[in-house]
């Protein structure tokens, strides 16, 4: 019984590790030492110890934003298999998954608009605009997977993908992985879509939305972002190398290293690319969407 909850536990505990890994990779490419691997854990602890400051113009929506967005990613994480093991799964849960991500985004955007600040409004606007492209892409990918695996449950879709190891499916797999990778970058505010390290409000997307959050609320937001990154990387890892069964320790190790690999790839991309101009971002996302669409046409054939 308790063992079913192990994937959840792993997610909750290991999620803040990934941003640290990305930063380490970037530092290595830049020839720096960089922040420690566990930096985010320290940040979260520090933030939790602080008090809170709320803007006078905000309402309860502002305070609910971080909680709801964190809760939605945590619940969404329940459906995502880790090394073939899922906490909770039923037919149709992909739709619940996508909607939970959407709900989290919705509340973050609402909380940003609730501050009344133009900067945060602009960030919200950008976030929503990019999701116009990212969400259909995600759905199209799910349609392809549902079609290929004949299932509507995320765990079965990811663990039983017959794509891997079949040469005829290699092209399809490449298309899916590429577009999902782009979605992953966009959803998690990574370069080239967004730059988590920038501090100029006019160019930020996600960071600017949470400018007014501080203390435990910011901790919730950062933690939520890391879980989201973890979840998306887990999905990518499963797509690249589906696994099921086997001894938990062995597959866990393999899967862990796979996830680390994907994370490092993200770090490499971040080091190698510059942030795109805001106007160009939709084009990238559109391209990902079209590629996914193309893949869907292929899979439906």
């Amino acid at each position, binding site marked *: 019984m308790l063992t079913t909850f192990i994937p959840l536990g792993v997610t909750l505990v290991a999620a803040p590790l990934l941003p640290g890994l990305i930063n380490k990779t970037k530092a290595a490419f830049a020839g720096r030492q960089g922040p420690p691997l566990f930096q985010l854990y320290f940040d979260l602890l520090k933030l939790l110890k602080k*008090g809170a400051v709320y803007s006078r113009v905000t309402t309860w929506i502002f305070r609910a934003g971080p909680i709801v967005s964190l809760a939605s990613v945590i619940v969404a994480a329940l459906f995502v298999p880790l090394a073939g093991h899922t906490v909770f799964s039923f037919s149709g849960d992909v739709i619940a998954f996508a909607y939970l991500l959407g709900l989290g985004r919705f509340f973050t955007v609402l909380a940003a608009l609730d501050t009344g*600040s133009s900067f945060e409004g602009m960030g919200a606007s950008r976030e929503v605009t990019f999701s116009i492209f990212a969400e259909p892409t995600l759905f199209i990918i799910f349609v392809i997977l549902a079609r290929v695996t004949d299932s509507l449950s995320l765990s079965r879709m990811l663990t039983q993908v017959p794509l891997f190891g079949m040469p005829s499916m290699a092209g399809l797999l490449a298309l899916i992985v590429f577009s999902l990778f782009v979605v992953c970058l966009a959803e998690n505010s990574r370069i080239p879509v967004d730059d988590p390290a920038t501090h100029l409000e006019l160019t930020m997307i996600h960071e600017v939305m949470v400018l007014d959050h501080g203390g435990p609320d910011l901790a919730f937001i950062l933690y939520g972002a890391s879980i989201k990154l973890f979840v998306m990387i887990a999905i990518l890892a499963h797509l690249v190398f589906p696994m099921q069964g086997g001894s938990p320790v062995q597959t866990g190790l393999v899967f862990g290293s796979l996830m680390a690999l994907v994370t490092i790839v993200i770090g490499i991309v971040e080091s190698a690319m510059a942030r795109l101009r805001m106007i160009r971002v939709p084009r990238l996302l559109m391209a990902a969407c079209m590629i996914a669409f193309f893949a869907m046409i292929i899979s439906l054939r």
Partner: protein
Amino acid sequence: MIVPMGSMAGMCLVMGLVPVRFFPVLGRAAAAAAPLSHMDFQTVIENSGPFLSNVGLLSCIFLLVVALLFLIRRAVLLGKEVAQSSTWRCGYSGVTPRAQYTASSFAQFPVFLFRSLADRRVESHKPKGYFPAGARFRSSAPDLVLNRIVSPLVEQSLAWVSTLRRLQHGKVQLYLCYMFVFIVALFFWKL
């Protein structure tokens, strides 16, 4: 006014949390409308039962997690200072409520991206000279579907209808003509 609206919202919430309880009831109403046989209806209920109970469970888990996080934040903030301040202004202190981030600002980016579809109207008077007297900027994106598709369609059909309305012109002889033509047409069609 709050009570009826609130009770309806509450009912929606309850139906979302335990859809399994409601589905057979609503399903029976739906079965009365659709020409489904009783057997079909039973299978539909049986097949959708687990799915609905899972959706309900999911909603409950979600609410539980929200409540838990709320309690955690409360515990963390216990005994600490919760201050009130103004919104982060990024160094500019002259912000007045007039400088609001409006709905059209919010939509500006996607409207720009889909400008070929969005029919955006911009009316701007830029400031001129060193001491500009005034400046105006106004942008709107009229509802394209309504203005370009629905309204012309409705107007077209209303115009068409008003030509048809001339059939009722008050001349009783022509009314009788309709009858006559109709009866002859029926004879040719059916006899």
